[in-house]
């Protein structure tokens, strides 16, 4: 039965690819659908992690908060139009347990303003916990650990 079938690295990797593609192509409405209901999404920094500080730059502890966040981004918040381009390096399997696969992946994210200005926006690691639900792979937990503690301007679009 599906829920039993363990998540393969290929499936996990495909999820990650589709996730960043959805963001890079501006399909933000799909963002919450990459997660299960009882999920956790965090953006934090390597420095806070190393110093044991629990603060997040962005924190959603369930899928409803993902919807609230993205609705704010699309309707309430105002910012200069821009898009991202994510580049993924190889993934490392950290653990596999009861059908959940935990994976670490180095990434770069380039930010492109509508003016054309292009910059290396952030670098860091994805630490993902991926499960199968209704036959489809989703994130149970996604932790985005940024290498830098200094953010340029703002983070409106999730990483």
């Amino acid at each position, binding site marked *: 039965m599906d829920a039993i079938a363990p998540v393969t690295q290929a499936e996990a990797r495909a999820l990650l690819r589709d996730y960043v593609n959805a963001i890079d192509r501006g399909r933000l409405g799909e963002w919450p659908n990459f997660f299960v209901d009882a999920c956790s999404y965090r953006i934090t920094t390597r420095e806070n992690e190393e110093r044991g500080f*629990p603060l997040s730059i962005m924190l959603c502890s369930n899928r409803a908060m993902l919807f*609230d966040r993205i609705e704010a981004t699309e309707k309430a918040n105002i910012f200069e139009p821009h898009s991202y381009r994510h580049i993924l390096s190889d993934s490392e399997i950290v653990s596999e347990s009861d059908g959940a696969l935990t994976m670490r992946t180095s990434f770069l994210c380039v930010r492109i303003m509508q003016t054309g200005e292009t910059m290396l926006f952030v670098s860091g690691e994805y630490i993902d916990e991926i499960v199968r639900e209704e036959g489809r792979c989703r994130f149970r937990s996604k932790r985005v650990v940024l290498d830098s503690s200094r953010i340029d*301007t*703002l983070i409106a679009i999730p990483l």
Partner: protein
Amino acid sequence: MQTDDDLGQRVAWPPEGVARAPYVLFSDPHVYAREQAAIFRGAAWHFLGLEIELPETGSYILSHIGDTQIIVVRDGRGDIHALVNRCAHKGTPLVFAKSGKVADRFMCIYHNWCFDLRGDLVSVAFEKGVRGKGGMTPSFCKEQHGLDRLRVHRICGLIFATFSPDTPDFEDYIGPAHVANIKRVCGRPLTILGQYSQILHSNWKLYMENVKDPYHASLLHAFNGVMKMDRLTMEGGITMGARGWHHISYSKMTVDPGGEVYEKATQLRSAEISAYGFGLRDPVLTDVWDDFGDKVSLTVQDVFPCFVLQQLRNCLAFRRVRPLGPEKTELFWTAFGYADDGADRKAKRLAQANMMGPAGLISMEDGMIGALIQDSIQGDQDKASVMELGGRGIDAVEGSRASEGSVRGFWTGYRALTGL
């Protein structure tokens, strides 16, 4: 060489005074130099950090006042010193990590001169030369080559410093009401929840104007407006600090009597937003409590020129603003709670932290607005902004935040120190 007259001439402040801010102030390098001397090295107090960042003897953090790096260190007697991070020999910084701990001295990496925790020079490598040859010139006297040490003031675990002997004592500098709010918010043992910073592509003053501008809070941050989290129609006001240089903007956790303007007035953006008809899907952002038993749910306090103490419901933070040249600024955030917070309150503060910082639901726009302005005014260096909400002066409008008096208060302090 730029003379002072040159500068006054170029800035040419309009007759309306602090109801105007000439745009040239936001990009001119000579104005920037004047600010460094008159404000950052001048008669003003600057926030450096927290005592809890310095747990032991020799614990230090690296902070800044304008263009100057400052070592903040705890000595063996428990005193805290603010030292300019520049070796007296050839200018090498003594420390270059954000924070750390030394035993009882700072050793310069370049030629190993050593300074004690008060900044006094205690040893010079090869001072006597080698086998009687070389060494320091006889007239050299260590006493004259210590690190520059600043005046320090500590209040509720917050550390402030000033370069100038002329700066009034801290409590006179900000005034009793402002001392009271620091004690209100920081009067209990604090705990740091985390830190990060933001690069703002604008002059530092555009950010400080933003902080001191209650007018924008519910308009630029539409999330505030539509979520009824902070509106000018709520009960609240502005409390001006000593000489009007500082301000506290506050509002109360009450129902919003006249709030329908935010949904109806077609000249407000919040009225155009269809979202949130039924509020947020997740209640955590609105699941708040009265931290100080006074029903005041929001306070934003600044200490002129560059310090901010923020209470957004239960989301508490210090902000420190550092200019990086005329057109770039770094904004340092420290989120905090209380040592005695239970797991539940801590968790809720962390959730409410979604409102602050570079991704903050009601702060992200502040990271960008200054850069937009910086770009759009560059062609109009001869023009000025217009601030006439609540008059042209700095008197608080009793019980109202529909005033730019606090922004004019910033310019009052600015003009007093820079002479512009």
